[in-house]
């Protein structure tokens, strides 16, 4: 294998794929990147057996072939090289020589035969979406996914292509985030998959703002193709809870709040909570929301956020982190909070099709 490639092109490609590489893994080959030189292009591929990322770039290939090289080390070397073309040649013992300007490196690789092959889903139907849109939808939900490994099916986000829309849902059993986007979904192509958190992070890392992403799934695997990148992932097996059931009916009170004002108030009052599990009380009263926290060891804090509200006084306690999470990721100026009483779920909405349900805390 022998090829020449611009430094910036190679570095950008390595950056796209190296995130997947586990820092320490049981299988040495998984810390390597698979390099494949074909006609006029090279492809780079990494995997952790769950998520795989493949990226291709233009190169002048003199001799086709493949090998694997340590991904992180290669990326560190390439980063430091001068902005000149890099010539890479690999012998049949998988030893790579890398030359660039006055620099010379010899790197020991491993045979490409041991690298787990990337398998693409066999799904018939391909959905096309705007990349920026998908990235935005994932960003608005992913924080709500569970990190408790005993609740396997919640360790990711549900992608539900059904009823002529894509719904992305994430929940940890305490709160739930849902974003919807209308798109054409033929009846026979309706499907739902749970995408693991790691794949979500990878997508958020590699998706760009423009262009189209093609999504294909066969129920076991899912693939995202965009620009010169393919991200494939296993999907989480199991039945995702029926999220529709969680969405409460019409609430008694609806309040419009300035997002940043409320977020800032919550940030400040949560400084006196001792543990992130501590509760923040939201009191909806005459034309204001009073946000307060109390902690026996530290003290207390209170913020008043002005709103238009003339309903009855309601006090409800939430985990402040749970309220701040959606406020951080939304971009709109105003949000709507819907509440009924201190035991019923609270709902956050905004102008775009976004819905966030969170359960109150009972403070005995």
């Amino acid at each position, binding site marked *: 294998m022998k090829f020449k490639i611009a430094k910036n092109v190679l570095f950008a490609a390595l950056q796209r794929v190296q995130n997947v590489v*586990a*820092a*320490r*893994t*049981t*299988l040495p080959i*998984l810390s390597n990147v698979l390099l494949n030189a074909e006609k006029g292009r090279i492809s780079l591929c990494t995997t*952790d*057996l*769950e998520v795989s990322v493949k990226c291709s770039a233009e190169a002048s290939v003199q001799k086709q072939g493949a090998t694997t090289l340590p991904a992180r080390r290669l990326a560190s070397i390439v980063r430091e090289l001068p902005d000149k073309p890099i010539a890479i040649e690999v012998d049949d013992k998988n030893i790579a020589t890398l030359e660039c300007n006055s620099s010379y490196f010899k790197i020991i690789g491993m045979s490409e035969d041991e690298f*787990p092959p990337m398998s693409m889903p066999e799904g018939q139907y391909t959905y096309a979406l705007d990349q920026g849109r998908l990235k935005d939808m994932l960003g608005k939900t992913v924080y709500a996914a*569970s*990190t*408790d*490994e*005993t*609740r*396997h099916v919640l360790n990711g986000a549900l992608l539900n292509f059904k009823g002529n829309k894509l719904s992305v849902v994430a*929940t*940890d*059993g*305490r*709160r*739930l985030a849902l974003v919807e986007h209308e798109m054409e979904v033929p009846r026979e192509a309706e499907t739902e998959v749970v995408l693991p958190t790691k794949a979500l992070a990878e997508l958020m890392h590699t998706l760009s703002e423009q262009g189209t992403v093609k999504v294909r799934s066969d129920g076991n695997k899912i693939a995202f193709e965009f620009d010169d990148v393919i991200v494939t992932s296993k999907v989480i097996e199991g039945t995702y*809870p029926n999220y529709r*059931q*969680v969405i409460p009916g019409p609430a008694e009170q609806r309040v419009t709040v300035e997002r940043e004002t409320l977020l800032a108030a919550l940030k400040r009052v949560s400084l006196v909570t001792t*543990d992130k*599990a*501590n*509760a923040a009380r939201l009191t909806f009263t005459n034309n204001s929301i009073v946000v307060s926290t109390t902690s*026996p060891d530290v003290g207390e804090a209170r913020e008043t956020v002005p709103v238009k509200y003339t309903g009855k006084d309601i006090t409800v*306690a939430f*985990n402040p982190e749970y309220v701040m999470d959606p406020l951080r990721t939304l971009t709109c100026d105003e949000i709507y909070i819907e509440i009924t009483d201190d*035991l019923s*779920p609270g709902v956050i909405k905004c102008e775009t099709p976004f819905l966030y*349900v969170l*359960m*109150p*805390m*009972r*403070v*005995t």
Partner: protein
Amino acid sequence: MGPDTHIRVLPDVVANQIAAGEVVERPASVLKELIENAVDAGATRIEVEVAAGGRKLVAVRDNGGGMDRDDALLCVERHATSKIRDVRDIEAVRTLGFRGEALAAIAAVSRFRLVTATRDGAGTELEISGGRMEAVRETGAPRGTSVEVRDLFFNVPARRKFLRSHQTEVFHLRAAFILQALAHPGTAMALKNDGRAIYALGPADDVMVRVREIFGADYAAHLRPARHGAAGVAVRGCVGVPSFSRADRGEQYLFVNGRPTGAPLIGHAIREGYRTLLPGDRHPCVFLFVETDPGQVDINVHPAKKEVRFRQPGEVRDAVIAAIAAALGSPAAAAGRAPAPAPAPPAADAGPRLQIVDLPYGRAFQYPRRPIRDLAATDAAVPGPFEETGIESAGTGPAAAPSPSSPDAGRTSPSPASISPPSPWSWCRVLGQVGGLYVVLETEDGYVLMDPHAGHERVLFERFMADIDGEAVPSQSLLLPQTVALPPRDAQRVRGCLDLLRRMGFGVSEFGGDTFVVDAMPAYFSGADAAPILGELAAAAEEGGRSAGEGRGREEAVARAACRAAVRSRDRLTLEEIERLVVELAQAAMPYTCPHGRPTLVFTSFRELSRRFGRG
């Protein structure tokens, strides 16, 4: 003359009542005897009905061989049995009963009705009240025997007084039924309580099927089939994976030649089979059938046959250990565990690695196999964030938090040899992680190995208890209430402490049967799954109630269990979390052990190191 003091032979009725004292302890023992008789009669279908906790009615109907009129009359006589003929037969008993005491004893203390027929149509009906034959008549009946025991102990008020609450007796009846149902998976069995069907078990050719029917599919998913045969001893059944352990032996079911029994020997063998897999205070769930030549077993040791002895204990012991090892060592043992946190290793190293996955949480190998953070990448950064995250709050400042509590902590510390410093540290930094679990810390006068799970349990426990004392446990509601089905024993225990659990922030309520709904959890455990915690709590509440006898003890037991369960589910921590844990542990009232008494910190002083390196 005073009262008559001549010695006389007691009338049979009295003798039977005395015998009843040994055989019939409570309604559940009646049920056991009747089901065993039905099984011995070759029944393929047994229907059981009880009412009012068995006081009013215990009825067992079978489709076995039945009896003719003469046998029916004989069977209620004392020491009348079809099962043995002379003393030599005891050596080789294959039936469940043999002493011929049971029916006579039961009939002596109840209103007893027996209908039996050897073929469909002509049958015999007996009615006995308090041991006196009231009626014998011909009657139409299907093949088989049906026994109704009403008003148990109606003529023995002393016994009646010892019966416990309705609920408790039903619990014992169910336990007896489950035991028999497990012992005879090939027999269809049904149980009705106060007219409501509780179990309807079809005939099964494997005990696993029956376990699934009784305990549920979730439960059965944690069991692995066990089978071993050698030297005249065959062992079969199923055993639970180590991560599915219990705080007591309540779910160890042993059967010797089809007879539910216990044998200290087998208990030791089970212990041995799990020795390296479970800590000393945890017990596996096992359902084991030991089959051996009847001549090799002495069952006539205990009147209720609760214990047996073996003539060749060594063989039995080895067979049980081998069966457990085979069940847990096979690849199938590992395959079934639901969450596999790390990417599945390739087939080539599958063998030994997969066994590790089945080790219980909290023990070495479950902790991140990946490093907490890539040390090479963050080496330089380690001291930086550490100073920021405020080790000073742990005591760089003069009035450090841990110092006031330290004398007390030092005194209660269990092994002062390994934990010598008077206070944890006035500064420290995280050096890394060893053994995939333990965190290495450097302090001003030595290095410390910390078990982060134990440490986390301690921190959580103290915070939780403080809130319980302050009667302000924040409770996080759940979006989707979780239903949790528990095994009958655990369900009974949870039912007994619902109020306590609610006070501690668990939103638990009954959902009918042995199922509970959890709609809120204490905020500290908000990330965790309710189901395992609930089972853990049940055992803890029971234990706490027994040992302490007052509220605080029970609360502590529950808190301990909850903390353990919550911490177990965390098997990945970030460096920042570790650092925060170090700070919080330093501030704990008792930082040196976890609430269960295991050490959290092992300290080695620099002086000790120098001594070992021969530097004086």
